[in-house]
C-alpha cells in the first residue's frame, strides 16, 4: 500500500462482503417461496424478502464502489485522501442507516414503515428498488455528497489521470441521477418514465463508467501495460457505453404509455449496447496477453478476466435476447427478465467489486502484493463455484421464462399466471439448487480470507518472469 489513507477502503470491503451474504440468504428464501408458496408466510412475505435481497445488493455494491474509489484515488492522484476521517464517519452513517432500513423492512409492516417515516410528506416509497424510506434516501444523498467531495478534492489537488476522471464522472452521474428517486408524480406514466432515469441510467450508463475505470486500474497494476494504451481503450469503451446506452433507455419505454416511436429508438440503440461489453472483453484479454510482467496475484487477474466475459454474457448477450420490441412484447416482465437481471448484475457489478477486493485486500492486510498460494487457490475455487452457479441460475430462469412466455402469452390458448407457474416449478427447483451452490461458493470465498495467512506470499516463478 503506497498511501496510508487507502486503509479506509478496508471496512467498506468487509461491510460489502457481509451484506453480500445477507443478500444471498434472502435470495434463497425467495427462491424457495417460488416453489413452497407459504414458506415463512405471513412473517416474511415474498415482497419483503425480495426487497431485502435487491436492496442489500444495491447497498453492498455501493459500499464496494466507495471502497474501490478510496483505494484507487490516492494511488492515481499520488497523494493522501483529503479526509480519511470523513470517509470513516460516512462509512458508519451509511452502515447504520442501511442496517436500520433493512431491520425496518423485516420488523415493521411496510405500510407502518411508510407511516413512521412520514412518507406522505414526500412520497418516494413503494417503487421497485427505490423502496427505501424517504429519510434513508436523503441519507444516501448526504453520504454520496460527502464521498464525492472527499474523492473529488483528492483528485483536484493531486495528479489527474483518465482512470480517476472517468471514475469521478461515473460517481457524479450516480449521485445526480439518484435525485430522480425523489420525483414521484401521481401520473403513473411519468412516474415510470423518470424511475428509469435512476434505474437504467445507473446500470446501463454511469455504473459502466465506474466498472470501466476500476477494471482499467486493476489491469494497469497487474499487467504493467502502458497506461496510455489502457486509457485509450477506456475512453473508447465508455464512449460506446453512453452512445448506445442513453438512447437505449428507450427499450423500457415500449409498453408503459410512452409514444410508440420508442420501439424504434429503443430497439436500435439497445441492440448496440453489447458492443461496449464486447470491447471490454477484447480489451481485458488483450492487456493480459500483452502483459509486461506476471503479477503474483493470479486470483485478481482471474476476477478481472471473469468480469469482462460475464458482463458481456449477462448484460450484453442476455440483454440483447429480449431487447428488440417485437420480442419484448412477449417477454416483458417474465422470468426472461429475471434471468438477464441475475447474470448481468453478477457479471458486471458483483464481479468488478470482487476484482477490486481481490486486488486490494492483500495490501490492505499488510501483504506486499498477493496472498499465499493456498489462499489464492481457494479464492479461485470460489470464483468458479459462484460463476458456474450463476450461469446455471440464468439458464434455469431462461428455461422457465421461455415456457412461461409460450404458455401464458404465445400459445393459441393462453393459461392463467398461476397455472403456468405450477407447470414450470421444476425449473424453479433447479434454480434453487444452483442458488445453494452459489452460497457454498460464497462461503468458500469468505474462507479464502482465513486460510494460508501465515504462509509466505505467492511469488512469480523465475521462469515465468517476462
Amino acid at each position, binding site marked *: 500500500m503506497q498511501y496510508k489513507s487507502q486503509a479506509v477502503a478496508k471496512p467498506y470491503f468487509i461491510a460489502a462482503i457481509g451484506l453480500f451474504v445477507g443478500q444471498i440468504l434472502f435470495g434463497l428464501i425467495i427462491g424457495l417461496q417460488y416453489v413452497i*408458496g407459504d414458506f415463512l408466510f405471513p412473517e416474511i412475505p415474498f415482497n419483503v424478502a425480495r426487497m431485502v435481497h435487491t436492496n442489500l445488493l444495491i447497498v453492498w455494491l455501493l459500499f464496494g464502489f466507495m471502497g474501490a474509489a478510496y483505494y484507487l484515488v490516492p494511488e492515481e492522484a499520488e497523494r493522501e485522501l483529503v479526509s480519511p476521517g470523513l470517509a470513516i464517519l460516512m462509512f458508519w452513517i451509511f452502515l447504520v442507516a442501511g442496517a436500520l432500513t433493512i431491520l425496518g423492512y423485516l420488523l415493521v409492516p411496510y405500510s407502518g414503515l411508510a407511516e413512521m417515516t412520514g412518507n406522505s410528506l414526500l412520497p418516494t416509497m413503494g417503487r421497485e428498488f427505490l423502496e427505501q424510506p424517504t429519510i434513508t434516501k436523503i441519507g444516501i444523498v448526504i453520504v454520496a455528497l460527502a464521498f464525492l467531495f472527499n474523492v473529488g478534492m483528492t483528485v483536484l489537488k493531486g495528479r489527474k489521470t483518465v482512470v480517476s476522471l472517468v471514475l469521478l464522472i461515473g460517481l457524479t452521474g450516480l449521485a445526480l441521477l439518484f435525485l430522480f428517486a425523489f420525483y414521484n408524480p401521481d401520473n403513473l406514466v411519468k412516474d415510470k418514465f423518470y424511475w428509469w432515469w435512476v434505474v437504467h441510467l445507473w446500470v446501463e450508463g454511469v455504473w459502466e463508467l465506474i466498472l470501466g475505470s476500476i477494471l482499467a486500474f486493476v489491469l494497469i497494476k497487474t499487467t504493467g501495460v502502458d497506461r496510455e494504451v489502457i486509457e485509450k481503450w477506456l475512453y473508447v469503451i465508455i464512449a460506446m457505453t453512453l452512445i448506445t446506452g442513453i438512447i437505449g433507455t428507450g427499450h423500457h419505454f415500449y409498453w408503459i*404509455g*410512452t409514444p410508440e416511436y420508442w420501439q424504434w429508438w429503443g430497439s436500435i440503440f439497445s441492440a448496440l449496447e453489447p458492443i461496449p461489453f464486447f470491447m471490454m472483453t477484447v480489451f481485458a484479454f488483450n492487456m493480459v496477453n500483452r502483459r509486461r510482467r506476471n503479477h503474483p496475484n493470479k486470483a485478481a487477474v482471474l476476477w478481472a478476466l471473469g468480469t469482462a466475459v460475464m458482463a458481456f454474457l449477462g448484460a450484453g448477450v442476455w440483454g440483447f435476447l429480449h431487447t428488440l420490441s417485437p420480442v419484448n412484447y412477449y417477454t416483458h416482465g417474465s422470468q426472461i427478465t429475471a434471468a438477464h437481471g441475475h447474470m448481468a448484475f453478477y457479471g458486471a457489478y458483483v464481479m468488478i467489486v470482487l476484482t477490486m477486493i481481490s486486488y486490494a485486500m492483500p495490501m490492505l492486510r499488510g501483504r506486499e502484493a498477493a496472498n499465499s498460494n493456498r489462499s489464492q487457490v481457494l479464492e479461485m475455487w470460489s470464483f468458479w463455484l459462484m460463476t458456474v452457479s450463476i450461469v446455471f441460475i440464468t439458464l434455469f430462469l431462461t428455461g422457465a421464462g421461455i415456457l412461461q412466455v409460450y404458455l401464458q402469452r404465445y400459445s393459441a390458448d393462453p393459461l392463467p399466471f398461476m397455472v403456468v407457474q405450477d407447470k414450470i416449478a421444476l425449473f424453479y427447483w433447479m434454480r434453487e439448487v444452483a442458488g445453494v451452490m452459489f452460497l457454498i461458493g460464497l462461503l468458500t470465498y469468505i474462507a479464502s480470507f482465513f486460510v494460508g495467512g501465515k504462509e509466505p506470499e505467492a511469488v512469480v516463478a523465475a521462469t515465468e518472469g517476462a
Partner: protein
Amino acid sequence: MSQAFTKAMARNIFYGGSAFFILLFLALTFDTHSALPDRDNRQNLTEQVAHGKALWEENNCIGCHSLLGEGAYFAPELGNAYQRLGGADGIKGFIMSRPKDGIPGRRSMPQFNFTPEELDAIAAFLKYSSEINTANWPPNIQG
C-alpha cells in the same frame, strides 16, 4: 489499437458522443411529454386514483406483482387486472377474501385489512392504469 488512433481522439469521441446523445435524449423526452396527454389517461387521474396509487406504493404491491410489466414476477400482472377480474367488485372481492395465515403450500396475497374507502381507491387506480395506452401490451387477458 493502432497508433494513428490517439488517446485525444478517443477522448473527443467520448465527450462529443455523450453530449450529442444526451441532447438527443432530452429532445425525445421533451417530445414524449407533449405526446403524453393523448396516451396517459390523465383525464381520469382523480383524487381517488392518486389515493389508490399511494396505497399501492405504501403496501409495496410492486414487491410481488408487475404493473405494465414492471415489478416482481411472483404474482400476476395488474395492468389489466380490472378487465381480468371483472371490474372494481372483482378486485375488491379478491383483496378482501385473502386468508390471514395464507394458503398451505401455496403463494397467497397477505390480508391487508383495507377499509371500504381504501378498496375503492385501489380499484380506481387499477382502472385508471388499465386505460393507459400501452401499445396493446399485454398480448392477452392473462397478462
